[in-house]
Structure formats: structure tokens, C-alpha cells
């Protein structure tokens, strides 16, 4: 049937595009129509259904911080997804409490998305509230001081710019917080 494409360029173009568009449309346009959680922000007030909380859009300062995170390419080394793997929930967990897995409805406002593909440093999907501002200051000045063996480079131009530093930390403290997963609300500021 497709042998006609050996001789007829117009037929070839049509066949190549039709085959491409079947999969193209079914895997990009259709899924968000079928799965509401891709577009409906997380909200839960019933503890019986898991962690409670509500996903809020970032404020102006947090958005500035997020832009810095994008500019510096933090997302090349840090993923933002606690996957459906036991080890991930333990590693994203803290003080003996496992973190809930990431769900699509927690990322509805993310633009650009920052899920990442490479984990050179630890995952940051639940880092919000784990470390206080002082810790972050010391860490951005020289990560290896706090974590011996760390290969994360120092970011003095952020640590030394009060506005940028405050914005970046404000953003990081929001990560994973739409689900209120800490039993005693023991988040650091």
C-alpha cells in the first residue's frame, strides 16, 4: 500500500503526517482532557483522603525566586518529583516521616515546569520548610561547608544580594507545601 510513496511525494507527505498525527494528538491533546488532575489545583480538607491542603499560586516574591532558580539552571541537577517509589518517599521524607508522592494537581501553576530529568543533587520536591533561612545562606555561600563532599558550586552573587537571596529562599520554602504533610507543622522559616 505504502509503495506508492516511493514515487509520489504528495502521497508520501500525507502518509508520513497522518501516521505521525495519530500518536501526536492522542498523547498530547487527549490526556489532559481525560485526566482532570493535570489542570485542577490540589485541594483536600478531609484527612481520610491523605494530606490536607490547597495549592495556591506563588506571590510576586516567590515568582522572582523561581525565575532565579530557572536562570541559574538549578533544575539541571535537582528534580522536583517524589516518584511512586518507596525510596523516593523516604528520601523526600524528613525526621522519620515519609513524604507523600507528587501528584499532577500539585504542579498546576508551574510555568515552566521544573520536574527535571537528572538528579545530581537531591530531589527538592518536598524541601519547603526543611531548612531555615540561615542554613540556606551558609549553603549558597559554600555548599561543601555544610555538606562535606558536595559538588554543588557556591553562589556568592545570590547570597550577597539580599533581594535575590530572600526571593529564592521564599520560593524554595513553598516546594511541596501544598500538601500539609508534616505531622506537627514543624516547618522551618
Amino acid at each position, binding site marked *: 500500500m505504502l509503495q506508492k510513496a*516511493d514515487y509520489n*511525494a504528495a502521497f508520501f507527505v500525507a502518509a508520513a503526517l497522518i501516521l505521525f498525527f495519530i500518536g501526536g494528538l*492522542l498523547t498530547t491533546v487527549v490526556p*489532559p482532557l481525560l485526566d482532570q488532575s493535570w489542570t485542577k489545583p490540589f485541594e483536600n480538607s478531609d484527612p481520610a483522603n491523605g494530606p490536607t491542603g490547597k495549592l495556591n499560586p506563588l506571590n510576586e516574591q516567590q515568582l522572582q525566586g523561581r525565575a532565579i532558580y530557572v536562570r*541559574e*539552571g538549578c533544575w539541571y541537577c535537582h528534580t522536583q*518529583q517524589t*516518584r511512586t517509589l518507596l525510596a523516593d518517599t523516604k528520601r523526600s521524607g524528613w525526621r522519620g516521616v515519609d513524604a507523600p508522592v507528587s501528584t499532577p494537581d500539585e504542579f498546576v501553576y508551574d510555568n515552566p515546569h521544573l520536574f527535571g*530529568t537528572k538528579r545530581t543533587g537531591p530531589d527538592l520536591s518536598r524541601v519547603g520548610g526543611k531548612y531555615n533561612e540561615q542554613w540556606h545562606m551558609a549553603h549558597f555561600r559554600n555548599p561543601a561547608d555544610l555538606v*562535606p563532599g558536595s559538588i554543588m558550586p557556591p553562589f556568592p552573587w545570590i547570597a550577597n544580594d539580599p533581594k535575590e537571596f530572600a526571593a529564592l529562599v521564599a520560593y524554595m520554602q513553598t516546594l511541596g507545601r501544598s500538601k500539609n504533610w508534616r505531622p506537627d507543622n514543624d516547618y522551618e522559616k
Partner: protein
Amino acid sequence: MEKEEIMQDAGEIPVSTAAVYSESIHEDRTAKLFLISSIVYFFIVGIIALLIAAKFVFPTFLGTIPQLTYGRLRPLHVNGMLFGWLLACDMALMYYIVPRLCGVKLWSEKLGMATAALWNVIILGAVVSLLMGWNQGWEYAELPLPLDVAVVVAWVMFGANLFLTIANRKYKAMYVSLWYAMGTILWTAFVYLTGNFATLFATGVNQANLNWMYVHNAVGLIFTPVGLAIAYYFIPKTSNTPLYSHKLSMIGFWSLAFVYVWTGAHHMIHGPISQWLQTITIVFSVMLLIPVWAAVYNFFSTMKGQWHQLRDNVSLKFLMSGVVFYLLTCFQGPMHSLRAVNAIVSKTDWIPGHAHMAVLGAFSFFAIAGAYYMVPRVFKTELYSNALANWSFWLFLIGGLGFFVTLWLGGFWQGWQWNNPAIPFIDTVIALKPIWHTRLASGFLMFGGIVAFAYNILATIVGSKGKEVNAEPAAAAA
């Protein structure tokens, strides 16, 4: 369609019985300009590759200048290699191959030269914007919007030029390389629009799904088909052996056209995306074995009884090692998508090992082979040094294997450590230091390959001035 029949009128491919026409109808100005600029970027971006590999070993190296941090240099390395080197070299080879398979000259050298100029403006713009941190935050789609628009314009110019050449063709039957060239032009257009423009209208997981449809298909529907167009042309050509099976090449092409686009979401296996979509993407990822094995079987069978030719033919060495790497990388890909394997290798250093085998080991090897074949012919001279070309092959091969294999081992080890939460994360970082040392050393070998390749090509070009060899020059040598 019988094999014999299609060969009769399929241009000069592979060992032609078709009407001979004069090579002199081809000006090849566009092909030359694209090729030279791509090789210059290969060299420059190769230095950046070494810098970022060094940062894993010496974390504070060049670390206090924002423009020289890992987060800014990595996208420059990726975009520079993908678009500055590989795609530009692939385009140069398409400007060379397509007119020859059609038996007519390129529709417009003027349009081609303008495309090459625009492409260089885009790459230089990319260098500036990525160093400044003007990064859109999407992998492979980091470039700011004005440059995205310029890429689309350049691609339309490229596509129009080749399609109009094909429309004017003298040979009625289109050889398989022409299908892959046309497929690349068509699919790339839509894949690129999805990854750089459709993403502007989506957020969160929806955006990630579009982004990864683009990322995956940038390899699967841009570099794979254009790479196969090159392999299908140059393997029979350099070995002077007819392609084994036309039918098999059809199976490979049309299954690729259907299967590849489904697999983008396999970048989010176990991640926050619908489980049923993960399952679909796994099924189609495994089906990728069909187009890959069809093409690889065809290439191997073509070489049957001809393997001795590899000894003296550098282009063929690159081509056939590229085929082996293609087979391996496309076996890894489907296996990674299986949930159990994915839980170990995903997000680890295995992945750059896999990605480099595809883009360097397979597709750059094809492009380098094409460059070694094309340059002496379009500049009407002989290759500057066959010995140096051999050196470039072994440097690339040993450096490449050193890079791939150590990262697989390291990545697998890392993945197992991650799956044991009793091991602190930092210990899994420290454990990988020997791996990163080996990677840097392998990087130096590969860079040696780039230097040998680039010097050889440029010396050939410079040396061609003034000593024009008449008639069909290196034909016998290759």
C-alpha cells in the same frame, strides 16, 4: 516493488545502473558553508563539554563567575552540540545528498546560503542568551522566543529548498534516504512547534508532557531520521555495495513514522503523570525495537562479505560503529521504559551515558563519516590525511566507550544506592567521584578526536586551494 526495479531509477544509489549525469551541476556552496560552521561549533562546544566535565571533579573550578557556572554552561553544551554541530552538519549533508539522489541541482543556492547565515546568527544568539541566563527553563528548548521564531524560519527555508529540489527530480523513484530527509523536515516542524510554542499555552504536567514529547522526538524524529538518511546513503556508497533490502527499509521507515511519537511521556515513568499514559508510552517504547532492528539488519546484511573494507575506509568505520551504537542505544531506550528498570536507572548518570551514545556514538559518527566522504568531493581534492582520520576514529571510539561504559556502571550503582534509603544522599555523590574522573579523561580523548577531525577537514579545504585534482578525485581512495 522489486528491489531491482527501484534501483534502476533511484538516482545514483547505491552502485548506480542509472543514467550517469555530470557531477559538475552541483555547486554545493550551501553544503560547504553549513559543514564548515558546524565543525567550528563542534570544536568550540567541545571545550565547553570539557569544562562541565571538569566541574564534576573540581566543583569550584571557574565557579565564581555566573556566566561560567554549570547551570549556564550545560545548556550551552547541549544546544551547541545538538543545533550548532550535529543538526548543522546533518543539514550540510542533506544539501549534498538530496540533489544527487534527485539528479538535479539544489533548487536555490541563494536561499541555502541565506539559511546558513541565519543558522549562524541563531547559534551566536544562543551562546549569548544562554550565558546570560535567558533560559526558558525547558530542556532542549532553552532558547528565548525570538530565537525559536528564527529557528522556525530557517527550518522552513531549509525544507522548502529541499522539497522543491525533490519536486524537480529527474529520477521518479525516491530512494530511502529521500524519505528520511522528507520525514525529518515534516516531523521536525511539528515537533519543534510543540516543544517551543505549544508549551507556552500549558502549565504543570500538561506542559511537561508537551516538553518531553519534543525532547524525545528531537532525538527520535529529528536526529534519528536524518541520521538514517545519511547512513542509508553512505553505507552503500562508501562500500560500493547495493542496499540489502528495499522492503526492509520500508518497514523500518513506516514503523518509525507511526511508533516514535507516542513515547514522550516515558520521561516521567513513576512520576506525577497518569499511570495509563505511562503504560501506553512503555508499550510504544518497546515497539521501537521494530524500526531499529529493521534498519540495523539491513545495514549489517548490506555489509555481508564486505566487512574487510572497514580496514582501509575511515568513513565506513564510523558508519558501522555508528550502527552498532544505534543498535545498543535503541535497545537501552525501550528497556529503560520498563518500570522495574526505570526505577534503577532513571535520573542517574546512566542517562547521560545513554544519551551520549545516541547523539555522539550513533548520529555524530554518521555525520562525521558523511563529512569525511563529502569534503574531498565538493572541494575537488583529496583528504588531507588518512592517518589522521584514523586517529580521529580511534580517539572518538575509545573516548566514547570510556564515557558510555563508566557512566552506565556508575549510574546503575548510583540507582541501587538511591533505592536503599539507609544510604545518605551525599554518600551516593561521593561514591561517583571515580566515575567522574574517568568521564573527564574520556572527554579529553573525545576532544582529541574532535581536534583531529576538525583539523583534517579544514586542512583539506585550505589545501584544496590551488591544487585542483581533476575528474572524480578521491573516489578510488574511499
